[in-house]
């Protein structure tokens, strides 16, 4: 049956409900519908009943209108209910599902409590309830997913009572939403509001994390039409799925915008970092004055010759200002940025500029870098411009530059001697190095230059590979300022054997042990003496000496380690401390000593330490080392 006429009648009834039922009497629209409904009712008694009720209403007296109106509505509703459609045509496709495993079903009372906390605009303990819920695993109930998304949308990002806690939105993003996995992608996409603020930025980040290139159009839409907050993750998402050329214009607009937040501008500059076009170079040059800290990473990464030319030109200009007796800080700030931008660039003009600056501008030894650039660059140990330049040249790693830096040993009262020493380690023979620097080491307790060379030796000398590979992280064991990423990998086998005796004479035990050798019998006794009266696996000195003895292939090493293990209070070993790394030394023991480690494990109550001791036992059993 075609019920469109009845639906039209229903609309009229609704209209009259609004206007008043008595207006139905003699109503024009109803009168117009009556003959059509009568016709429809020819073959159907039910429709005929409607037609009769309609006619009765139209011709009602005012005092009958209400009853007739109700009567018609009742009959009409009954027919509409009977006639309502259920049919859905089309091909029934399978649901594309990405199941979330291990879902649980919480009782209503618990769901209500957590939903209340999630939907609260703010309350004192909202953060704590959500955190507790997270710890109790309540978010495994998939029915909470929508409430979680909604909560992040509505979150005012207030912090918990603990001042070190995250804000609510970040907590939800980091600990809850990002754990559901890609299953929630459709929900995230459907609820994304590109005009939204921080919460929507988080959401777009998640969409990008799970959806990758699939949502390119969404990222573009967010970049072109979204809020400032959402543009940032949109740029990040787009840089991995399209060429920068496609969005260059909008990126340049953002960089030039006075309203854009610094972090957004920085991301826009970074996105343009590989673009060598003239427009981008010009933008970067202009930003060097206005957005210095925001653009320097992008300039540093940009290979454009135009920018290299700018850096040398600007650097030369600034050197003139820096030569003044009390140079303005702006010049220091900008020259710091120039140096940082030049790092890693191999253009001959830049190299020549840096070399000339080192050899001919002695005032660069007295001027310190701008603190913020220093932080950005990670020049933690670099004091002066001269040292920063030496560092950069050394890091470039060519033989020619190593030789150049090594030649600066005596320049400006040994100002660059530590870099010269490192360059010499990398470019000179073991004997040549010994001849050039043994006096400095011998006088390391008397002269500043000597101390600097000794310090650098601490950074460069390590145990042999056989020893270091037993540790998961050797830097936690030799935590004197050894930094494997400092300037380059420490050189191997470049040390003269005579260094060992000098270091023993100087009583630099923690360094001497790294040079220990079975050919030098003195060193074994020296290290045994250095173990002291109460060696313990929780002491750094003990570990160093044991490693030295292992390197020197000391014959009674296993018993020595076993004894020290027996006398060590292993309950002092904590997971958050270096001592946790120290116990890897037990891997040196053969299988016969497993029971000693088992005894220690049995005594230790800390489950992580206990587990590590068991891993060491497994390692010994399989003899992986």
């Amino acid at each position, binding site marked *: 049956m075609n*019920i469109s006429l009845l*639906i039209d009648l*229903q609309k009229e*009834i*609704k209209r*009259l*409900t*609004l*206007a*008043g*039922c*008595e*207006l139905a009497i003699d109503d024009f629209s109803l009168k117009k519908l009556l003959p059509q409904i009568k016709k429809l009712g020819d073959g159907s008694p039910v429709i005929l009943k409607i037609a009769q009720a309609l006619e009765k209403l139209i011709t009602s007296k005012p005092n009958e*209108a*209400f009853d007739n*109106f*109700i009567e018609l*509505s*009742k009959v009409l*509703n*009954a027919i*509409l*209910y*009977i*006639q*309502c*459609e*259920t049919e*859905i*045509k089309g*091909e*029934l*496709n*399978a*649901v*594309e*599902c*990405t*199941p*979330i495993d291990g*879902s649980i*079903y*919480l*009782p*209503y*009372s*618990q*769901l*209500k*409590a957590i*939903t209340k906390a999630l939907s609260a605009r703010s309350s004192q303990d909202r953060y704590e309830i959500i955190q507790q819920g997270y710890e109790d695993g309540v978010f495994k109930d*998939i*029915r909470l*997913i*929508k*409430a979680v998304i909604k909560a992040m949308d509505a979150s005012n990002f207030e912090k918990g009572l603990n001042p070190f806690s995250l804000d609510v939105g970040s907590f939800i993003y980091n600990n809850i939403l990002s754990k559901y996995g890609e299953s*929630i992608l*459709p*929900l995230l996409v*459907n609820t994304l509001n590109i005009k939204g603020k921080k919460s929507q930025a988080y959401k777009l980040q998640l969409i990008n994390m799970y959806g990758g290139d699939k949502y390119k159009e969404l990222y573009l839409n967010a970049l072109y039409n979204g809020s400032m907050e959402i543009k940032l993750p949109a740029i990040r998402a787009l840089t991995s799925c399209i060429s920068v050329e496609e969005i260059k214009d909008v990126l340049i607009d953002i960089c030039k915008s006075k309203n854009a937040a610094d972090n957004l501008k920085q991301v826009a500059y970074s996105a343009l970092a590989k673009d060598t076009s003239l427009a981008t170079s010009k933008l970067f040059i202009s930003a060097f004055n206005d957005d210095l800290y925001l653009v320097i990473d992008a300039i540093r990464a940009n290979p454009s010759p135009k920018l290299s030319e700018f850096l040398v030109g600007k650097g030369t200009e600034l050197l003139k200002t820096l030569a003044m007796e009390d140079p303005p800080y702006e010049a220091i700030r900008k020259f710091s940025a120039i140096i940082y931008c030049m790092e890693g660039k191999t253009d001959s003009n830049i190299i020549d500029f840096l070399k000339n600056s080192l050899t001919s501008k002695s005032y660069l030894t007295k001027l310190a870098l701008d603190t913020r650039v220093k932080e950005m660059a990670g020049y933690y140990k670099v004091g002066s411009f001269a040292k920063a330049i030496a560092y950069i040249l050394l890091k470039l790693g060519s033989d020619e530059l190593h030789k150049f830096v090594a030649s600066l040993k005596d320049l400006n009262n040994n100002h660059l001697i530590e870099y010269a020493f490192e360059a010499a380690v990398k470019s000179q023979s073991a004997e040549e190095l010994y001849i050039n620097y043994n006096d400095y080491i011998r006088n390391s307790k008397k002269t500043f230059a000597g101390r600097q060379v000794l310090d650098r030796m601490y950074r460069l000398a390590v145990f042999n590979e056989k020893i270091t590979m037993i540790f998961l992280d050797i830097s936690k064991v030799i935590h004197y300022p050894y930094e494997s990423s400092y300037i380059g990998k420490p050189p191997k086998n470049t040390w003269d054997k005579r260094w060992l005796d000098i270091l023993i004479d100087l009583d630099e035990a923690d360094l001497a042990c790294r040079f220990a050798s079975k050919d030098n019998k003195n060193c074994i006794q020296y290290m045994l003496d250095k173990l002291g009266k109460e060696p313990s696996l929780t002491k750094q000195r003990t570990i160093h000496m044991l490693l030295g003895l292992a390197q020197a292939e000391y014959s009674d090493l296993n018993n020595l380690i076993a004894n020290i293990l027996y006398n060590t209070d292993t309950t002092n070993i904590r997971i958050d401390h270096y001592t946790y790394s120290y116990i890897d030394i037990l891997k040196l023991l053969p299988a016969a000593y497993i029971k000693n480690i088992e005894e220690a494990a049995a005594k230790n109550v800390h489950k992580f330490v206990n587990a590590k001791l068991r891993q060491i036992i497994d390692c010994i059993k399989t003899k992986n080392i």
Partner: protein
Amino acid sequence: MIKITEEFINSVAPNNSAVQNGLGLIKKNSFVKLFKSEDETIIFGECSGSGKSNYITSADFINPEAAVFRCTCPSRQIPCKHSIGLMYAYIKGKDFDTAEIPEDVLSKREKIEKRETKKSETVESDKKAAPKKVNKSALSKKIKTQIDGLELAEKITKDILRSGLGAVDAKAIQILEDQAKQLGNYFLPGVQTLLRKIIFNLSSKQKEDIYTDVLNDIIALSSLSKKGKDYLAKRLEDPELTIDSKTNLEETLGHAWLLDELKASGLVEENAELVQLFFTSFSSEERKEYVDYGLWINLHTGKINRTLNYRPFRAAKHMKEEDSFFSVLQTKELYTYPGEDICPRIRWEDFSMRDLSKDDYTSIKNFARKSYAEVIKEVKNQIKNTLSDKHPEMLLAYSKLGKIDDNYVIEDASGKRLLLKDSFEYANSAACDLLPLLNPEVFSNQAILVRFECDLDSGKLFVNPLSIITDSEIIRLVY
């Protein structure tokens, strides 16, 4: 031997806060003494609190189907947080020393026993004695008042519809509210609720969206007034003033059925077993009450039943909140409310519980209706009646759950389909969005609990998905 489960504790607890507070006592190690009797029919202990002396609390399972909770704390909640904490301490394996049952507990047990004996004797004597006398003059006076009330209700609906909904302004709403209040004097809470629903909808900001609903409610109120008057007039003519226990008219008018009345009308099933398939709770502004709403399947008959627990806003703090239930509920007497609706309301007093077995899931699935054509016919037959429930719930079997464009659809073995659509009435309903997060086996040959919804404006009948039942679990999609 006491068998306490977490679900049991939650089911007897008055609300979730009491449970959380009880658990908090264990975390804070507030229980200073924990005991159990040698026969393990009672656990008791002492708990430190804000008072000078410790609270002495106990959970007595001498009658496992009617556990008794006692505590010396001043709380009015039963069980209080101390008794709940005590039971949690027991199931969490805390050390309970064996001790003699305290004297006062023994004497209280004795009193209960005496009371029970007296009660059963009274029941027996009641059976033999003539039925309770009804004060007919008072009842006929009440019925006459109800008739007057229905006339008032009819007048109100006439006034609304004559002037039209468009003319209902703030002043008119105020008058209607006063009239609704007045209806409270006529022993017609059902009629009062229906009028309040109309007023509530008329006060809402999105008026246009609710005009169809308001019109339907006005039609219902008008019908109820007419039918009610006819029924009450006939009842007055009856010398026994017999109450109608065949239809839901009395309940719609607002009669609160007593269990004895239901029993006298033969609406009791013995030794029933029920499994809850869905639970939610919402606040009803028109009733001014919280409504705890559960849907259960009767494991013996396969019938889907409703439980409705009303908690007036004013007294909600002191009333027990119902909650989700994950075991099989066993009751010796299951009471069903009168009426011929697809999902009748049920109630029980005492219950015990057991775990769901694989066979239970299988039998639930087997009870699911197979033919959508039959189901649709049945539903339409119900919803076409003015005073009937417009949202019957049913358990349907489906051979496929799939998608047509952006819509989720279920299909029965004969290829007949029904559209799945979330309900706006449940605040936490996002069932369709959750479907892609379920395992692939859920999408064929399972059963789904649905709530029917008919949109008169579009002329479409569809279903709201509530829970999916597989061979091993009940996947609750909405709360």
